[in-house]
C-alpha cells in the first residue's frame, strides 16, 4: 500500500470551510452568493473526492499530519478506503441537497438563509473531516464541530418548539461527546496511541473486564449520534429543522458519523479479534435488534411524516450496527453497503416530505389521503423509497437485507433472520398504508399541485429515486457501494 504524504485532504476540507467563510462574510450583501458559492463548492468537492476515490481504490493511502496534539497523537488526516467511501457519500449527497436546499429555502422564503448555508457548509466539512480522520482525537474534533454546527440548523425557525428541540439536541450530543472523550482518553492512557490501525491498537492491554467496560463507554459515546435506543431521543425532536437538514444531516451525515465512528472503534481501535474475544458482540447485536424492532413499532404510531421517517432512520441505522455485531463477512458487507444504500432511500423520502410541504403545506400523514393525484412524481419517488426500505427486490434495500440475512445464517444465528424479517414486516406496516392511502383514497378528482414545486426540488428527488433503483438492479456495477464494501471488509478482516 503506497502512502502518499500530502496536504491534499486538507484542501478538500477547506473547500467547504472556505465556502462557509465567504458566505459568512459576504452572504448578506451579495444576492445569490449563498446559493452560487454552495453549489460551486459542492461540485468542486465532489469532483476532488471522486478523484481521490479512484486513487484510493488503486491502493493508495493519503496521509497528512501537520501538528502534534498530544504526545504520540498528531492531528492526522488519513484517507483509506473506508474513509473515502463515507466522504464520497456525504459529498455526493451534499451536492444533491444543495440543489434541493435552494429550491426549498426559496419556496418557503425562509429567514436567516446566510446562517443556514454557512452552517450547512461547516457541517459538511466536519463530516468529511470525520471520514478523513486518521486517529480518534482528530475524529473527536470533527465530531464535536459537527454537533455545534448542526445546532443553528435545528433551531433554524427559532420557534419555542425548535429551541426546545435544540436544547434536547445539545444535551444529548454534548453528553455523548463527553462520554466519548472519556473513552478516548482511557484508550490513550493505556495504549499511548489513538491511531486507526487495521486490527486495532488495544489488543494486549488491559483485562477483559476493563476492555468490556471501555467498549460500552465507547458505545454510549458514539451511540448517541448513532441513535441506538435508549439514546435516540434527540432525533425525532430534531425533525423541527428545515427538511434539507433532516434529509442530509439527520438521515445521513450526523447519524452516519456516529455509525461510522462505531465501526471505526470496533474494527480499527479494538480490532475484530479482540472484539470477538471480549464477547461484547452478542450484547451489541441484542441492542441493535432491540432498536430495530422498537423503533419500527414507534414509527407506526407517528402521524407526522418526518417523525415517522426519523424513527425509521433509528431502526435502519441499527441494521448497520447489527451487520458489524454479527461478525460474519457477509453481514458486515451488507452493513457497510447499507450505510450508503439506506442514505439514498432515506434522503429520497425526506426530499419527498419537503416537496409535499411546499406543494400542499401538509406535514401529517392523515392529511395526505389521495394526494398521489396532486403530486404524482413525488409519490412515485416516495413509493420507490418506501419499498426500498421495506426491502422489496429491485430496490437498494433488498440487496443489503439479503446480505444481512445471509450473514446471520453464516454466523449460525438464525434468530436475527427472524428479527430482520419482522422488521421488514413492520417497515411495510408503516410505509405501505400511507402509500396505499395516497393512491387509492381519492374521493374527487383533484388538480395537480406539483407545478408549485420547483425543478430544484424535483430534480434531486428524481436523481435519488433513480439511484435507489440502480443500486437494486445492478448492485455489482463498478464504483457501486457493494464493490467498495467488499474491499473494505476484505481489508478489515485481512483476507
Amino acid at each position: 500500500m503506497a502512502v502518499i504524504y500530502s496536504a491534499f485532504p486538507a484542501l478538500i476540507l477547506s473547500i467547504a470551510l472556505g465556502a462557509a467563510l465567504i458566505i459568512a462574510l459576504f452572504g448578506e450583501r451579495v444576492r445569490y452568493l449563498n446559493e452560487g458559492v454552495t453549489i460551486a463548492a459542492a461540485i468542486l468537492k465532489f469532483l476532488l473526492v471522486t478523484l481521490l476515490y479512484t486513487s484510493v481504490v488503486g491502493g493508495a493511502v493519503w496521509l497528512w499530519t501537520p501538528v502534534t496534539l498530544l504526545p504520540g497523537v498528531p492531528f492526522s488526516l488519513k484517507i483509506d478506503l473506508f474513509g473515502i467511501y463515507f466522504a464520497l457519500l456525504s459529498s455526493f449527497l451534499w451536492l444533491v441537497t444543495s440543489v434541493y436546499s435552494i429550491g426549498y429555502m426559496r419556496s418557503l422564503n425562509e429567514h436567516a438563509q446566510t446562517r443556514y448555508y454557512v452552517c450547512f457548509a461547516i457541517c459538511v466539512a466536519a463530516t468529511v473531516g470525520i471520514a478523513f480522520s486518521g486517529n480518534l482525537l482528530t475524529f473527536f474534533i470533527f465530531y464535536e464541530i459537527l454537533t455545534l454546527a448542526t445546532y443553528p440548523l435545528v433551531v433554524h425557525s427559532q420557534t419555542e418548539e425548535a429551541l426546545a428541540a435544540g436544547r434536547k439536541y445539545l444535551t444529548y450530543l454534548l453528553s455523548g461527546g463527553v462520554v466519548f472523550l472519556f473513552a478516548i482518553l482511557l484508550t490513550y492512557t493505556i495504549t499511548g496511541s489513538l491511531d486507526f490501525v487495521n486490527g486495532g491498537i488495544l489488543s494486549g492491554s488491559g483485562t477483559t473486564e476493563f476492555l468490556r467496560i471501555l467498549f460500552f463507554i465507547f458505545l454510549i459515546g458514539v451511540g448517541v449520534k448513532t441513535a441506538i435506543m435508549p439514546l435516540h431521543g434527540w432525533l425525532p425532536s430534531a425533525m423541527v429543522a428545515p427538511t434539507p437538514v433532516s434529509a442530509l444531516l439527520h438521515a445521513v451525515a450526523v447519524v452516519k458519523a456516529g455509525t461510522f465512528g462505531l465501526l471505526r472503534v470496533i474494527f480499527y481501535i479494538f480490532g475484530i479479534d479482540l472484539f470477538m474475544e471480549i464477547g461484547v458482540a452478542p450484547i451489541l447485536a441484542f441492542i441493535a435488534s432491540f432498536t430495530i424492532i422498537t423503533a419500527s413499532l414507534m414509527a407506526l404510531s407517528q402521524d407526522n411524516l418526518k417523525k415517522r421517517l426519523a424513527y425509521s432512520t433509528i431502526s435502519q441505522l441499527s441494521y448497520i450496527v447489527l451487520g458489524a455485531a454479527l461478525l460474519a463477512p457477509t453481514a458486515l458487507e451488507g452493513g457497510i453497503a447499507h450505510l450508503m444504500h439506506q442514505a439514498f432511500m432515506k434522503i429520497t423520502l425526506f426530499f419527498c416530505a419537503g416537496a409535499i410541504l411546499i406543494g400542499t403545506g401538509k406535514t401529517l400523514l392523515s392529511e395526505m389521503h389521495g394526494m398521489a393525484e396532486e403530486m404524482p412524481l413525488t409519490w412515485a419517488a416516495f413509493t420507490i423509497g418506501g419499498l426500498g426500505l421495506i426491502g422489496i427486490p429491485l430496490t437498494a434495500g433488498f440487496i443489503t437485507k439479503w446480505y444481512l440475512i445471509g450473514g446471520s445464517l453464516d454466523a449460525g444465528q438464525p434468530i436475527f433472520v427472524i428479527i430482520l424479517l419482522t422488521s421488514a414486516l413492520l417497515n411495510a406496516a408503516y410505509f405501505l398504508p400511507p402509500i396505499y392511502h395516497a393512491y387509492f383514497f381519492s374521493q374527487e378528482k383533484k388538480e395537480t399541485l406539483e407545478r408549485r414545486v420547483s425543478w430544484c426540488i424535483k430534480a434531486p428527488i428524481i436523481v435519488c429515486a433513480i439511484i435507489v433503483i440502480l443500486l437494486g438492479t445492478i448492485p455489482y456495477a463498478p464504483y457501486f457501494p457493494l464493490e467498495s464494501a467488499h474491499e473494505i471488509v476484505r481489508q478489515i478482516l485481512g483476507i
Partner: protein
Amino acid sequence: MNGMFVHLPLLIIMIPFAAAFIGPLNGFLFRSWIRRIVLIALSLNLICSILLALQVLSSGPFDYYLSGVAPPLGIALYADYLGACISVLISGIALVAVFYSAGIIPELGERRTFVFYVLLLLAIGAMQGIVFTADIFTLFVLFEIQAISLYGLVAMRGDGKGLLAGYKYLLIGSAGSAMILIGIGFLYISTGTLNMHLMAELLPPVSGSYTVLAGLALLIAGISTKIGLFPLHIWMPEAYAYGPSIFPVISTIALKVGVVAIIRVVYTIFGSSLAIQTIPLESILALLGAVAVIICSILAIRQVDIRKMFAYSSGANIGCIMLGLGIATIPGVEGAILHMITHTTAKAGLFLCADIILIQTGIRYVHEFKGLSKAMPYTMAAFSIAAISMVGLPLTGGFMSKITIASAAIADGITYYAAILLFWTLLSAVYFYRILNNAYFLEGTLSSTIREAPLRILIPIFIISITTILLGFFVEIPMALIRPAAGLLLGGGF
C-alpha cells in the same frame, strides 16, 4: 551567556516599576502621555520576556543575584522554564489589554484613568517579580505590592459597590497576606534561610515538625485567598462585577501568578521533603480543586450578571489547575501549566468582549443579550470563540489543556477526577449556552442605535481569539517550555 541576557530577569521586573514611577513624574505635566508610557513599557517587557524565554530554552535556567551578592546573604532571582513561560503570558495579555483600553477609560475619567494605569504597572511589575523570585520574603513583599495595587484598582470607580467590593477584597487579601507572612516566619525559624532552594535543602530533616507543617498550611491557605481557590473565592464575583474596565483581565493574570507561588511552595520548597512526608498534600490539593470545579460551576450557572458568572467560572478553572497540580505527575503539572495559559487567554477574550459590550450597549445581564449577534457580530464571534475554549470544546486551547489534565488523572489511576473534569464541560456549557443562545437565536428589543465596536477595539480582541484557536492546534509551542518546566519541578524541586 551574553552579558545582557543575564540581567533580563531583573529588567523584566524593573521596567513596569520604573514606568510606574516615571508616569507620575512627567504625568502632572503631560497627563495624556500615560497610555503611551504604559504601552511602551509593556511592549519592552514583552520583548524582554520573549528574549528570556528563548534564552532559558536554549541554555537552561539560571540564577541572578541582586548586586552580585549570592544567597544566603543576597537576594536571588531564578529564571526557570515556568517563570519564563508565565512571564510571557503576563506581559502578552497585559499588553493586549492595555492596547484595548485606549485613551481614557469612560467610567473613570481622565484623572483616575491616570492613577489606574500607574497601579496597573505596579501590579504587573509585582507579578513579574513573583514568578522569578527565588527568595520567599521577596515573594511576600511582591505579593503585597500586587495586592495593594489590585485593591486600589477594584475600588477605583469610587461608587458604593466598587468601594464595597474593594473593601471585601482588602479584608480577605490582608488575612491571606498575614497568613503568608506567619507561614514564612515559621519556615524561617525552622531553616534559618529565606532562599527557596536553600530552604528546600534544609527542610527534609525538620519537615515532620509542627512548625514546618503549620508554616506550609499557612502559606497554602494564604496564597489560596490570592488565587480565589474555593471557598476563598468570595471576593472575586463582586470585584469582577464592579471593578473598572480591564481590571478583570489583570486579575485573571494575578490569579495565575498566585498559582505559580503555590507551585513554588509545594514543588520547589517542599517537593523533595514531601516524598518522605505522611501528609498527602497533593491529594488534598486535587480534592480542593475538584470541589472548586463542581461548586463554582454550579454557582456560575445561577448567576445572571455575566461578570459574576465569569468570576465563578474563574474559580472553577483555578480548581481545574489545582487538580492538575494535585495529580503531581509530569503530565498533570504540564496540563495545569497549559491550562493556566489557555484559561488566561480565553478569559481575557471574554472579559474584553464583555467590557466593550458594556460600553457600547450597557448590557451586563444574560437576558439582555437577546439579538446582540445582529448588532455586534464581530464582538459576538470573538466572544463565542472564547466561550468555546472555556467550555473546552475542540479546536481551542481549553480543549487541549483539559484533555491533558484528564488523561494525566487517568494515567495516575484517579479516573473519577477525569470524569469530573469532563462532566465540568457540560456544566460550563450550560451557562455559556444561555448567553450564546440569547445572542444568536432569540429576537431582542435592543435599540437600533447600538453599533459594532470600532476596529481599534476589535483588533486586540481578534488577537486574543486567534491565539485561542492557535493554542488548540499548535499546542507544541507552549509545550516546549512547559515540558522542561514540569520535569524540573518534579525532578528534584529546582
